[in-house]
């Protein structure tokens, strides 16, 4: 049985984490994601969990690492500059193979930048961000419902692969309210019940967790491997894990691609705006479609192979609230024989439906590549 509620993207993420069994949150305030810690401050004590407003972002991610090592479903959230500060901890979590969820509600950079929505942290989220050969699994919701659903899925993926998972949204998604359906039965979790079930569940299912070693051999959780050959072995294991994830977990939405001459590639909020442009263009009989990556890492390469398999000389237009980050993965996915153009703005500006439609019309009859296609205002 489900219930329809009107909620912000930030609060939906927080409630989803609670309902997924997260019982530890640590974070430091930053706009535009402050509703997450505010919600957690109220909600975590209700379900017998722990909320900590830490002294810094580095402390928050380190506390999450500790809670994850003890077998708890744990998360932290921040916005771009704060996520930069957490990179050391994320690398350690990846190295120690711990499950944790990190939420980044992106604002515009570089530096302290400003608080407006942006998608400029794509490289940081998908290409490692911290030091060492590791990957986050990165999920990009485009609606408040999806923010709720993907946050729950993030915890499942994190536990399944013992890997950090990032939920990557932008200020617009975090601040916006939309009606969503949530399971009514789990919306209110009785305090005592939740406290006990989480503890036992963690101990019984996560055999590697640090839960007290009475009557068993001690477990070790570390990202430090000094003995000759040990680290290389870990890295080979990690690479095998990443290959498995790339094979199994690609997520995307495809819209109107069967007959499309031009395919827009956009994720998150940007994909919604692109859909508006597609509606306008289709009404004018322009054959345009959309591929919306839902997993940014692993990037959904397979759908691009399928499009190429159709034998169409299709052109691609990547649209981002950045100056060209995801577009590089699109180029890698389709290869050099396909035309891949780019439209992007960042720093407070968001490509509008009109700008996207204009760009699609401009490249429709273009024969050779010409970069860039940034619309001038």
């Amino acid at each position, binding site marked *: 049985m489900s219930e*329809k509620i*009107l909620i912000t993207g930030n609060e939906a993420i927080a409630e989803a984490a609670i309902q997924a069994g997260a019982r530890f949150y640590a974070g430091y305030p930053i*706009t*535009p994601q402050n509703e997450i810690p505010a919600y957690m401050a109220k909600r975590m004590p209700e379900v017998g969990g722990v909320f900590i407003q830490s002294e810094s972002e580095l402390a928050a991610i380190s506390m999450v690492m500790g809670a994850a090592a003890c077998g708890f479903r744990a998360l932290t959230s921040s916005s771009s500059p704060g996520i930069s500060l957490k990179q050391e901890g994320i690398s350690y979590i990846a190295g120690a193979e711990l499950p944790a969820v990190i939420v980044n509600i992106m604002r515009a950079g570089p530096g302290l930048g400003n*608080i*407006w929505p942006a998608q400029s942290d794509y490289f940081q989220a998908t290409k490692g961000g911290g030091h060492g050969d590791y990957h986050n699994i990165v999920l990009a919701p485009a609606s408040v419902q999806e923010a709720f659903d993907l946050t729950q899925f993030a915890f499942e993926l994190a536990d399944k692969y013992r890997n950090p998972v990032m939920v990557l949204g932008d*200020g*617009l998604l975090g*601040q*916006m*309210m*939309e*009606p969503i359906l949530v399971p009514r039965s789990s919306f209110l979790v009785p305090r005592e019940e939740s406290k006990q079930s989480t503890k036992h569940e963690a101990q019984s299912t996560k055999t590697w967790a640090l839960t007290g070693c009475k009557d068993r051999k001690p477990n070790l959780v570390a990202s430090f491997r000094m003995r000759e050959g040990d680290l290389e072995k870990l890295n080979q294991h990690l690479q095998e894990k990443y290959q498995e994830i790339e094979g199994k977990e690609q997520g995307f939405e495809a819209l109107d691609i069967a007959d499309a001459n031009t395919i827009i590639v956009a994720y998150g909020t940007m994909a*919604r*705006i692109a*859909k*508006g442009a597609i*509606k306008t263009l289709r009404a004018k009989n322009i054959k345009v479609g959309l591929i919306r990556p839902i997993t940014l890492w692993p990037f959904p390469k397979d759908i691009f192979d399928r499009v190429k398999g159709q034998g169409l000389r299709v052109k691609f237009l990547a649209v981002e609230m950045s100056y060209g980050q995801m577009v590089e993965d699109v180029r890698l996915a389709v290869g050099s024989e396909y035309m891949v153009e780019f439209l992007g703005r960042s720093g407070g500006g*968001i490509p*509008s*439906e*009109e700008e996207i439609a204009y760009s699609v019309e401009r490249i429709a009859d273009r024969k050779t590549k010409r970069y860039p296609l940034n619309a001038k205002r």
Partner: protein
Amino acid sequence: MTEKIIVAGFGGQGIMIMSKFLSCLAVATDRFTTYLPAYGAEVRGGTAHCMVIISDEEIYSPLIEKADSAIIMNEPSLIRFENRIKEGGVLFLNKSLINIKPKRNDFKTIEVPFTEIAQGTGNIKCANAVALGAYLAYKKIAPEDKIYAVLYKMLDGLSKEIIALNQKALEEGLNYGLPR
């Protein structure tokens, strides 16, 4: 049906809550809705605005380039948002606090002294409820029973006096007798 509404005024006029009312009304009538508040470096007494979309279809962008309706509660907001009203749109203007006229004449302007009417009901803070009533009476986006159901749900848990006050203010707006 798709209705794009910009609500704007100064911090303290209840801009966000009246916008939330509109989104709740969309939920109560089983429609799609998005509510996008201004979340910038806002200051007390400074400007506040919110973009609400109500539609029978899935809503793509929550941003409003051109609004079907604008509810403008103070003068700086009129200057800022006049150009965001679409041709043939409707401007609901708080005559009590706005002494200038809109520059454009390609949309319909409905002037109502929301703040004075609210004072008449006993509390100046209810100007937003009066404005909501006037908007809903003109636009007829939902039946009256749903409007009251949303009002009672949003005020649930508050004192009888507050509920009665808001209901009275909303009724003043609904019954103002707007031109059709």
